[in-house]
């Protein structure tokens, strides 16, 4: 029996994309969220769409250029990226990344320093060269997540905000309903894509999913003159020049954190702002005079190997993306929708993103890795 009625837990990029794909297949979808659409890491990340390491890469690349049209709302997707080095070690790493991608058939060009400076006018004399991804790009996270939500509503899907899940009703091994503070929702299948809450929700239906949560930070400047290509990384930073011109960048050390079942109540930033600013001023000497106008932090759940989990047990599909959820969301939603409806991903092998790789993991794996709050 194919699922007619699906409840998705989590209105972030992964959950909403899955819901949207399901709705496109004619499924009746309800998305429950503890808070607001795209309010966690989905709405406050670097906006990158260039995940060559993922089995979902080809689908990510196929879909992003079409997303505005498919969703009916702007995502601010802009194609291609440059990664530029300001130290010899960075250049060596980037050249390795270029070589690796070219071997895999993803075109990456090498740029010398003058070519970088031509494409990236904010770069300075300290630039040693870089690489140019002829794929990928960046989009506006918050706008894109809202676009998924609205597109889902336009297809008849329902989104219930401020409605934390409180339990699951299970009959003969399958989930028959999801209980939340706003009521009980009957279903044929469930998707759990609830970011840092995914682990404890999955545990309630007997699925072991090892996750640890980290806090990461970003800063944003006032607008800079528009560069030809806004997706410029390097010097230990990821980020983008937004279509407004602001430079929004993150990177650097993370902090392992813990919080209650409803997620963190606050997401403070720290003086890491100053270290990010230094890196950004080094990356873009031409922007060193620009004002930093905000900093922010987000919380990201990570699996022990830092790779996503997309897998299904009975009628429960779990999706946790280990920090690459936003960019891969067009493709992860497709994969999740396939798992819910067909039991397997129709467009690529995602076997190695399965839950079974963590079978038998030590209960104290976080201790041995040092992934613990201070």
């Amino acid at each position, binding site marked *: 029996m194919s699922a007619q009625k699906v409840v998705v837990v989590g209105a972030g990029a992964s959950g909403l994309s899955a819901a949207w794909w399901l709705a496109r297949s004619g499924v009746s979808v309800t998305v429950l969220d503890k808070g607001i*659409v795209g309010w966690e890491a989905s*709405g406050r990340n670097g906006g990158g769409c260039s995940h060559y*390491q993922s*089995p979902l*890469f080809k689908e990510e690349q196929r879909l992003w250029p079409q997303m505005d049209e498919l969703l*009916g*709302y*702007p995502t601010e997707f802009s194609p291609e990226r440059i990664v530029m*080095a300001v*130290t010899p070690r960075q250049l060596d*790493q980037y050249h*390795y*990344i270029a070589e*690796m991608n070219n071997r*895999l058939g993803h075109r990456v060009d090498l740029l010398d320093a003058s070519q970088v400076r031509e494409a990236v006018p904010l770069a300075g004399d300290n630039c040693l060269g870089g690489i140019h991804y002829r794929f990928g790009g960046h989009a506006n996270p918050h*706008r894109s997540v809202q676009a998924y939500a*609205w597109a889902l509503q336009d297809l008849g899907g329902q*989104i219930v*905000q*401020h409605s934390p899940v409180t339990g699951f009703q299970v009959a003969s091994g399958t989930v028959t309903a999801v209980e939340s503070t706003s009521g009980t929702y009957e279903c044929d299948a469930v998707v759990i894509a609830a970011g840092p809450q995914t682990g404890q929700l999955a545990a309630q239906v007997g699925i072991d999913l090892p996750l640890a949560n*980290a806090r990461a930070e970003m800063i944003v400047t*006032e607008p800079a003159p528009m560069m030809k290509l806004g997706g410029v*990384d*390097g010097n*230990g*930073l*990821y980020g983008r020049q937004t*279509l*407004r011109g602001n430079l929004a960048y993150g*990177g*650097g*050390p*993370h*902090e392992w954190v813990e919080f209650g079942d409803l997620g*963190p109540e*606050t997401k*403070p*930033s*720290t*003086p890491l702002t*100053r270290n990010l*600013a230094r*890196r950004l001023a080094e990356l873009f000497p031409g922007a060193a*005079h*620009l*004002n*930093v*106008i*905000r*900093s*922010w932090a987000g*919380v*990201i759940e990570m699996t022990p190997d*830092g790779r996503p989990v997309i897998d299904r047990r009975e009628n429960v599909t779990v999706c946790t993306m280990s*920090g690459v959820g936003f960019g891969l969301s067009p493709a992860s939603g497709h994969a999740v929708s396939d798992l819910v409806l067909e039991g397997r991903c129709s467009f690529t092998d995602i076997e190695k993103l399965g839950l079974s790789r963590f079978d038998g993991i*030590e209960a104290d794996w976080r*201790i041995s890795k*040092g*992934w613990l709050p*201070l």
Partner: protein
Amino acid sequence: MSQRGHDPHAIDGKFPAPSHHYDVVVIGGGPSGTEAALKAAQVGTKVLLVDENPVSGALIGTDVPFFFGGRATTAVQNRERMVETVFMNMPWLEPAFEAGVEVQLATTAWGVYRNGPLVGSLPGQVVGLADAERSWLVGFDKLVIATGARDLPLAFPGWNQPGVMGAKALAMLLERYDAFAGRRIVVVGSHDLGLETALLAKAKGLEVLAILELRNTVQGNTDLAAQVAAAGIQVRCGVTPVEAKGGLDGVEALVLSDGETLACDSVVMGVGLVPMIELNDAADGPRRFDANRGGWVPEESEAIAFAGSCAGLVNTGFDHASYRQDWMDALGGACGGDTIICQCEEMTLADLTGLQPPRYLERPPALQKRSLKTLLQDGPPNQDQVKRLTRTGMGQCQGRRCRDQVAMILAAEAGKNLAEVPLATHRAPVRPLPLKVIADWEESEAMRAGWDVWMGIPTQWVPYADIGTPYEEENRRRLGGAMAL
């Protein structure tokens, strides 16, 4: 049980202790902050008092921290002279110097950081400071925030041109900076603030054409009203601005609701002041809404106290929230959909209520069917959500010019009281600071060595097809999980 491992790319141990530590740090060197510093110094504690004035000409140009409205003279560009001028105009600092308080002018406090929920990595509680050249962190046992209150601008046609400004900005330019460029002013609002502003302007030799009051009577206290009358300043009740007209240099005239036009160069908004709680707010300090004290006011915690109007305006029993609402309704009545609400991002009232993105994006048909009203059907009002979709409040003034009004509009659209709409977040740095100034040019070796672009987990970037092949080992060797050190 396993031994605790070490994650070299986690923040652990990467923040060094601040080089300076004080028993008490006071932010804001007005009379209230100085009094607090003096009191602390008199019992023998080590006290630092910082004041951000004079702020740079560039910040004045973006209405930070007050609504200067482009009416500062070019004198504000001369930093050294300004420091002298401002210092001369703060005679109350003298006893603080004598008591041994360390005083730093032209020094901005831009962030307060403490360990607490989600942060355990800080070497104690610190405040981030900056001058024109660099930034640094200072440890403290007790912080007194005495940052005062800032202007509350409200939109009306023509408000987004030089010459429309705030009462607090005018007072600072007249009293502290000696750098006000206008001559003929109209004051909007007749509560205590408006009356005091008119009296100050008159005393400084400016021509005060009128005080405008939308209600039928003068709102300020009778003593001030009597002084205003004695000074020959006219209060026009039941009259509001309809449009500020002007040219290249800004305001030249103000059209009134009674049909008259006043030739003036400055329109001074004296409708209200907002306690500057952003340092406390960005540090997740507690706050509450008090309509009689100017809106959101901070609540003391163990390590942070407040002095002066930062703690809330003096409670005279006057309901500032409803007065502001009345003014917004009156001025809003003159606004068209094309009236700019967010000056930084050039977003209009229609853009805001239509929940539309900035003009550099297309507005496809589905999007045009959305609005603030449809968003409010999905959930309670949240200004941060509206901010991210419309960009109102996202600009270089850090939302100072429009955030209060956007919150009022949101409350009105949602049919709620202002107190029921969550305050839009404040985030450090609470003053715009250049990258090269806020940058930590002396960061710890541990920070430098442990830096990673994203998490630093050796397996995360291995291409899927390479997993379990010799390429995986090569990937680890070349990148080690660390992308772009």
